[in-house]
Each structure stands twice: as structure tokens, then as C-alpha cells.
């Protein structure tokens, strides 16, 4: 009796099938539905809207409130990514030199990442109290106590640049994670490379700038992409620190308010679609480069 041989890819495919099905429906079908919704004027609970084409998008692009939310997001992203990368890299360089108690510091620095944005947002909300001088609390009080009273500021309640202060909790949370990424990157560089450089007469500074940093490229790229997509979607941190208000409104918060508070589902879906596009702009080139990298191996 002749037995038909199972194709070698079949068992793997069958195991993957449930997750392919779930991801197909819960990600791609729903993405498509969201896009369809964004081209309607659906407003009000359980209402049916009519198709309005790209009108929601056209209105959003020229709207002051949407521009404000994009500007807030931009300031937040620059502060968040810049601050996290800088502090993470600094901590990684310090730990990489093999100081005593490295394990302790590593855990201590990574630990804040275990908190949720809501929990740390609440605490940082108290810390970043904008009252100054006699009534000051939180960081402003601390600054006074250490003789830096002139640095007191309204934190996130400052106009325009307040969003940079809102990035502080996020920096605090993710700097340790970036440190770990870079530390792993440093550890992946063989000692031979450094020794060769020393023999060739490079000083410590040159070893970092000419040898180690270029080799950290892949780690830095991963870090950028991870931070970038967290930043674009930031919602819970903003709401935990400042509730929902114009001053700190990011596109994700705007989407939420429009959809669930004002029940303007069409417009909310349009904001969500724009957010998806912005995230894709960050993530897709990364995925492409990773894919190409794997192909070459």
C-alpha cells in the first residue's frame, strides 16, 4: 500500500493556522473596517452613517485642534526618544566598564519598566506639580531644597513645551530598557576588536566613537523603532498625568475623546487611521531592513 507523504510544511502550517486566522481577523479585517468607518459620517451610538469619502481626513488636516495634537506628539516624541537614548546609552557605557555591583544597578535601572504608564503617570503627576515657592510640592519643592529654586517650572502645564515635561515619566521608565539593549550590544562585540584597536594606537574615546558605536547600529535601530511606536501611540500616560485636555492632547487621546465622549465614530476612525499610517512609517522600514538582513544570512 502506497502511503502519501505529508508535505513537510503542513504540520507547521496547521500549528500556525489558528494564529493566522485570529491575526487576520482581529488585525487586518478590523483595520479595514476601521478604514471603511473613517470614510463615513457615522455619529451617535448605534447610528448608521453615510459615505463621505475622505472628508473626515480633509477636515482633520486643516483643523487647529488636530495640528495641536500632532505638534504635541512631535514635541513629546523628540523629548522622549532623545532623552531615553541619551540616558540609556550613558548608563550602558558606565555599566559596560565592569563596575562593582553591576547586577544591582542593571536591575535598578530596568525596574521602572515593570510599572504601567497609569501607575507611574499618577505618581509623576504629583511630582510635576506646577506650584512654586512657598506652596511648592514634588520636584519644585525638591529643587528649592537643593538650592536650585530658580529651576522651578510649571512642568507639563507650561505652554507649548509642556509636552517635553510629560515625556519625563516615559524617559524614566524606558531609559533602563534602552540601557539593557545597548549593554547587550556592547557585550556582543568581541574583546579582540578592542584589543586590536588599542594595539593600533586608538585611545579610549576613539574606541567608542570609531569602533563600538558603529557596531551598535542594529541595537540603536531597534531601540529607535521600539521607542518610536510607543511614543506615537501614547495615551495612558497623558491621561494619567493630565486627564483629557487640549493642552496635552495627543492624536491617540483626541481619537478617544472624539470616539467615546463625543461619539463621532467616523472622525475618530479617521484619526486612528492617520495614527496607523504614522506608526507604519516608523515600523515598516525597520521590518524591511530586518527582513533583508535575514535573507542575506
Amino acid at each position, binding site marked *: 500500500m502506497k502511503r502519501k507523504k505529508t508535505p513537510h510544511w503542513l504540520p507547521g502550517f496547521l*500549528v*500556525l493556522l*489558528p*494564529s493566522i486566522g*485570529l491575526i487576520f481577523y*482581529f488585525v487586518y479585517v478590523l483595520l479595514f473596517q476601521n478604514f471603511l468607518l473613517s470614510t463615513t459620517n457615522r*455619529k*451617535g*451610538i*448605534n*447610528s448608521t452613517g453615510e459615505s463621505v469619502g475622505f472628508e473626515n481626513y480633509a477636515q482633520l488636516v486643516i483643523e487647529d*485642534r488636530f495640528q*495641536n495634537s500632532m505638534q504635541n506628539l512631535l514635541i513629546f516624541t523628540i523629548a522622549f526618544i532623545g532623552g531615553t537614548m541619551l540616558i540609556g546609552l550613558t548608563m550602558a557605557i558606565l555599566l559596560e566598564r565592569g563596575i562593582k555591583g553591576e547586577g544591582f544597578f542593571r536591575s535598578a535601572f530596568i525596574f521602572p519598566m515593570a510599572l504601567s504608564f497609569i501607575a507611574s503617570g499618577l505618581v509623576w*503627576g504629583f511630582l*510635576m*506639580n*506646577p*506650584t*512654586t515657592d*512657598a*506652596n511648592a510640592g514634588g520636584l519644585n519643592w525638591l529643587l528649592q531644597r537643593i538650592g536650585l529654586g530658580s529651576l522651578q517650572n*510649571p512642568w*507639563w*502645564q507650561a*505652554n507649548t513645551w509642556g509636552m517635553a515635561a510629560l515625556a519625563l515619566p516615559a524617559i524614566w521608565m524606558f531609559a533602563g530598557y534602552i540601557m539593557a539593549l545597548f549593554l547587550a550590544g556592547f557585550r556582543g562585540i568581541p574583546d579582540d576588536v578592542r584589543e586590536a584597536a588599542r594595539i593600533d594606537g586608538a585611545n579610549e574615546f576613539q574606541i567608542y566613537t570609531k569602533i563600538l558605536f558603529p557596531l551598535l547600529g542594529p541595537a540603536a535601530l531597534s531601540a529607535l523603532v521600539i521607542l518610536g511606536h510607543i511614543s506615537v501611540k501614547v495615551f495612558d500616560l497623558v491621561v494619567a*498625568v*493630565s*486627564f*483629557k*485636555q*487640549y*493642552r496635552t*492632547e495627543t492624536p491617540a487621546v483626541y481619537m*478617544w*475623546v472624539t*470616539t*467615546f*465622549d*463625543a*461619539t*463621532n465614530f467616523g472622525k475618530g476612525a479617521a484619526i486612528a487611521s492617520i495614527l496607523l499610517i504614522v506608526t507604519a512609517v516608523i515600523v515598516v522600514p525597520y521590518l524591511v531592513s530586518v527582513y533583508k538582513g535575514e535573507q542575506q544570512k
Partner: protein
Amino acid sequence: MFSTRKIAGVSLALAIALAGCSSGGSDSSGSTDSGSSSGGSSSAAPSGEVEVFSWWASGGEAEGLAALVDSFQEQCPDVEFVNATVAGGAGFNAKAVLVSRLEAGTPPDSFQAHAGKELLSYIEAGQLEPVNFIYEEAGLYDAFTADLIEQVTYTDGNIYSVPVNIHRSNLIWWNPKVASELGITPPTTLDELFTALDVVKAAGATGIGLGTAWAQVHLLESVLLSVLGVDDYNKLHIKGEGEAVWASAKTTEALEAYARLLTYANADADGIDWAPAAQLVLDGQAGFTVMGDWSDAQFLSQGLTPNVDYAWAPFPGTAGVYMWLSDSFTLSNNAPNRDASICWLKAAGSQAGQDAFNPKKGSIPARIDSNEALYGEYLQTALADWKTDKLAGSFAHGTVATNAAQSELQTVVSEFKSKGATDIADFQAKLAAAALAE
């Protein structure tokens, strides 16, 4: 390449999806036709669970709800009360959760909504069953004032909710000890208020304890009422009449006064809710705060004594007007347990239920036959005012604003403040559009 973590994640997602399906099946095909026409409640004693959705999570609000539930359990002993509370002042988190549940077709049996325009969002969505039959069966038509019945009756002649209380929004609170130290007498006009605020400021304290966006809308509506007067104020929310009032010079004057009041506010106003803002007054750090009478319940639950630790008056220039809002409960279309929900609504409308709830909640009962002896010092004055005052509806709390309008107003007000509170003309135009949003 398929790690165990991913498999665990997928099975979790599957479990969640299945759970969602099992409770999400029912659609609008259920009991929609069992409304007012065929209506009425079945004669058998209801049993099972009743899920009631509200935003009463802390302080006097939670105590009031607990007292109301006790009364409900006496009246409907076989029904188990399921408390679906989502915390957040003025329902600013709860309403979003409610929207997602209604959209998913899994409504609670009964949910809290402010009587008035806020209910419109749900009525027009077909989410509510008329409760006229409950009013008839429980005698509520005679228990509420004619005014209130008129306010909760919709254009189709139906009533869609049972009010449990009446709150007052246009109140100003202060600390009598601080006031007597500074020689301040209670202000009765806006000018007197500004004079008093200057005295407070000169003494090195904050003028007005203010909270985040919705509390700013709350302050604004009192200022509008004060400057416009009750007749013009009551036109603000009516399409066709409101536009002219919003564009008037009087409104500009009111907004200028509001902008000036903001200059006396605490620096962290945008970052705190109403209770910490009121606390500034109790602690002597701020002169006044403008907030509804749930403040009274909050202060009492802190063990404070009225007229010793705190005092109140109608917002300057609004004496004789009761800016009201009313918490009410609805009967969801397709309520999973309709009979139990009806029993809950009858308990919520009953004298026993309202007299249990309101003294703790810090509001007066919607019923006129309540036992007034149960109510505290502030509420005695409120009961007296409610009988004589003219009525004005609150924007901040949904009496005259849809959910969309409330959300838009909060955005406009927080935008105005975050941009330095200077561009009055822009503010005025945006407010008009926001207030009339549907």
C-alpha cells in the same frame, strides 16, 4: 520560530474573544416592542441579578449609592445587585465605558445619566425603553414637581428615566475662619467677588480653587448665568435662539469676567480634580471654590461642620436661580433582566430609596414628599430654595448639553486656558458652536 509565549498570547486572545462573543450576541431584536405601549411589569417577583452602571465610586457618592442599594434590597429582596461603577468626576471615564458597551450590544440593566439633553444621545440611539408605565405604577407623576416632569419628558411625550435627586451647580464655597480673619463678607455680585479675591490675593493665598476641564466649564456656566440673567441663559442651549445670545455683548462681558477669574486660580488647576481644588479652600490656601452641592457631602464625610469649617452661597449674581442637574437611572432596551431593572427603578424613585440616598449624596430628593428632617444644614437651605427659585439647566452636567456638547465644551475651555485666556472673540465663537453640538 513559534515561541511558547506567542502561543500563550494567542490562546489568551482566543479566550477573550470567545468570552466577548458569548455575551455579545443579543441585538436590537429583543424586547424593543415591550415598551410603553404594551409595557408594564410582570406580576411575579423579580429575581436574578440587576447590573446598575454609575460613576459613584467614592466619598458621599458611594455612601449614597450603598444606602440606596440597601433600600432596594428591602424592596426587591430576591434580586442581587451588581454594582458596575466606573470612577471619575462627572462621569468623565464612565461615559466612554458605557458607549463601548452600548455599541457592543451588551447594555447594563440600568445606567446612570443626567436628566435632560444628555439622555438624548441614548434615546436617539434607541438604547432606552420609555418608563412612563413605571411612573404610573409607582405614582411618580404625583411625587415629582410638574416642572421636573416637564423637564424629563421628551418631544415624543415619553419619559426615559427616573430621577433620584436634584443637585445645584451654581454655588460658591469658602472657609468662614479665613473669611473672618481677612474681613471678607460673602460676595453677592461679581464686583464684590473680585474685591474679595483681591483681598485674598493680597494676603498671599490663591483666589479661586479650580479643577480640570470639566470644573472649568462648571465655573463658566455660573459666570454666564450671573451676567446674562436666567432668561437669556436659558436660551443658550436652544438652536435658533441660542446663537444670538452667544454672540451678544453680554456674553463677551461674561467671558471677560471668566478670563479675569482664571487669573485668580491655582497654578495646578489643569492637573487636579474638583475635590483637591475644594481642599485648597478648607486648608486656607484658597479663598473660594465654585462647585456643585456634592461638595457638601464631601465635606461632611470628612467630618467637617457646616458654617464653621465651610460656608456657601449662590454664585454671586445668581441668587434666586437654581442651576440644576439631576442624576437619573434608565431602563436599557434589551436589559438582560428587565423585571429586576424595573424593580430597581421603582426603588430608586421611592420615598424610602430617595431619603436613604440623598442625605449622603448631598442632594435634595426629586420627590416632594420626602422626610425633610433627615437632611442636613446645607440641604435644608437647598430644599427651601428649590421650592421658590427659578430654574436654569447645567451645561457641565448635561441638563442642557448633549454628551458631544459636554466634550466639545471641555476642549474649548481647556484650549482657552492653555493659550493664556486672552482671545475672547475666538473663545466666544467656539463656545457657541460647542454648546449647540449634537
